[in-house]
């Protein structure tokens, strides 16, 4: 590393120590251990700044925060999966001895193959570590992928197909109004018949043109092409609205982080 890097790191270490000292002094008398509390909030603030520093460019502080985050979270998720899924859910149903070993209350249920299935599939997946019979792990993968495809087929058929069709079959003219009196009585009230009719037209045309855009068996030319073009316009308008909505959410996240830095760490705002 260059000399300047060492200097920057030394300055950061000094700033960390100063922050720790002042935060601990702030917490004195308020919490059980002011030193620990001061350290934790200083660490959180420095890690936040380290991650944000990526906006400038890749640097050792970002690398440190990145590796710390990845290492801790990977270990956390492994422990979480093991203790909640295997120890918490599986072992109490299949083994008295192991339940006792892990300090879990044994659930005396009738023998059920369903509980053994994940055990078998898990062992098959682990066989992948063997170079000779590693191919057996494909069976477990095939089971997972096949089951997922089957379940998704029915789920999407209901939600994206039947539900969509059912919700799109809407009257394009107001009830008992074939059009003549409607045109002579246009009101832009959100709950009025004209706006309701307009909404139904947008739903109808939007869905029809959207489906046409996602039709892959025919070239998008002529009338079909024009409907497809309207479909992509409708999609893009929808995406634009979604973009703005989501960016608003992200700004909220940024405000939350800045609030932490200015309020909890620096104490500049109350």
């Amino acid at each position, binding site marked *: 590393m260059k000399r300047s890097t060492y200097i920057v790191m030394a300055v950061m270490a000094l700033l960390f120590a100063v922050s720790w000292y002042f935060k601990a002094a702030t917490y004195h008398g308020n919490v059980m251990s002011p030193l620990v509390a001061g350290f934790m909030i200083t660490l959180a603030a420095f890690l936040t700044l380290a991650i944000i520093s*990526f906006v400038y460019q*890749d640097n050792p502080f970002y*690398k440190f*925060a*990145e590796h710390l*985050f*990845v290492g801790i*979270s*990977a270990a*956390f*998720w492994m422990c979480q999966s093991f203790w909640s899924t295997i120890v918490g859910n599986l072992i109490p149903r299949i083994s008295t001895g192991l339940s006792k070993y892990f300090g879990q209350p044994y659930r005396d249920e*009738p023998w059920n193959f369903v509980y053994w299935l994940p055990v078998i599939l898990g062992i098959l*997946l682990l066989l*992948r570590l063997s170079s000779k019979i590693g191919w057996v*792990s*494909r069976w477990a*993968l095939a089971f*997972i*992928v096949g*089951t*997922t*495809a089957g379940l998704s*087929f029915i789920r*999407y*058929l*209901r939600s994206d*197909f*039947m*539900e969509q*069709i*059912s919700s*799109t*079959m*809407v*009257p*394009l*003219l*107001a*009830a*008992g*109004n*074939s059009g003549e009196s409607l045109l002579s009585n246009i009101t832009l009230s959100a709950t009025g018949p004209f706006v309701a009719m307009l909404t139904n037209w947008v739903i*109808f045309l939007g869905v*029809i043109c959207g*489906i*046409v855009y*996602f*039709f*892959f*068996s*025919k*070239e*998008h030319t002529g009338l079909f092409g024009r409907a497809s073009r309207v479909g992509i316009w409708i*999609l893009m308008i929808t*995406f*634009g609205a*979604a*973009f703005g909505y*989501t960016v608003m959410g*992200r700004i909220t996240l940024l405000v939350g982080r800045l609030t932490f830095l200015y309020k909890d760490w620096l104490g500049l705002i109350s």
Partner: protein
Amino acid sequence: MLFRVAIAFACLFIIAGVAGQPAGDTALAVQQTIAPVTSLIATNHEYDNGTGIDLIWVPSIDDRLAPSRVTGYEVWRSVVGGSGSRIAELPAGANKFTDEQCSRESTYVYSVVAISVAGNAVSISTAPIQPAREWINLHRLNLLAIAFLVSAAVIYFIQSARSGKKLFVRKIAGLDAVDDAIGRATEMGRPILFIPGIQDMDDVQTIAAITILGRVSRVVADYDTKIKMPVSRSLVMTAARETIKASYMAAGRPDAYNDDMVSYVTDEQFGYVAAVDGIMVREKPATCFYLGAFFAESLILAETGNSVGAIQIAGTAMPAQIPFFVAACDFALIGEELFAASAYLSNEPKQLGSLKGQDVGKAVALVVIVVGTMAATIGSAWDVTFMNQLWSALKVVFQTN
């Protein structure tokens, strides 16, 4: 005289005692001010896994005559031969309840208690009942019929493709760029980064991404380009390694395959993003593929990829994330295009047949929507009975509950 007085007191005492008895009954009658529920019937809950029992009853007459007198109902359940327990509290006016916490091995007896401030009234218990499991839900026959229709179309087109019939699939913008993008990475001597989303193999978008990976890795193997694939799920890592390995073997270069091409990072969403961003700025991939299920990380990844000058091809069916990919990537596969991409790229009969079968489903949807909307419009605007009946019939066929 004293004797007479004593007799009189005794008589009064007895009379008071005797009179006290009916007085006690009256107090009891005051407490029992409400009538119990009647006609309590327990029936097996239809089309479930044998865990439900339906209860229906006629509410207390007092609930109907003076609603404020009955404050609610309690449902009590007991296993035959065992003690009872309260399983639900319902508001006044309730006349049915479904117990969904039953076991197929047990027989149950139910009673309903009408609650009032003055006192409670217990109903007569139901006859013992044991829940039963049904294998087929007849309420969803319409779903079965539509599933059969779509499946039959898929099978028909797969068979057609296998028999050599050429199936047309329109050009999907962005997919033609895949080969060029890989070629660019080869010329620049930089790796390709493939991100299959952050969901597990139980997400159909991840499966679609892995299918496309098969085609991409085949070209990578042919061009002898480097591919890097950090993943956030261990099962995806296993599936991706199998896929890339198969592609390298198909390309006749099994020796060039290396398990390190696919690496597990972490399940944590933003830990994974931090690591992928780090890989991008350090390895500077020439091409980035983001295909699969993405959430808040989509824009962070796409912006970082953009900053290192990579060609970016993205595809997801997550509606909230598509705008970010459209804005930040060179090519974006929107929704269904992600699933069509694998068929388009591979040209395999199975995938092409599946795509064509889905198009049949879309054609059916188009026709039904147009007919149903016309029926609804004419039926409601001009009050045409036949059209209203047609609309209702279509609604019934496509209802999902």
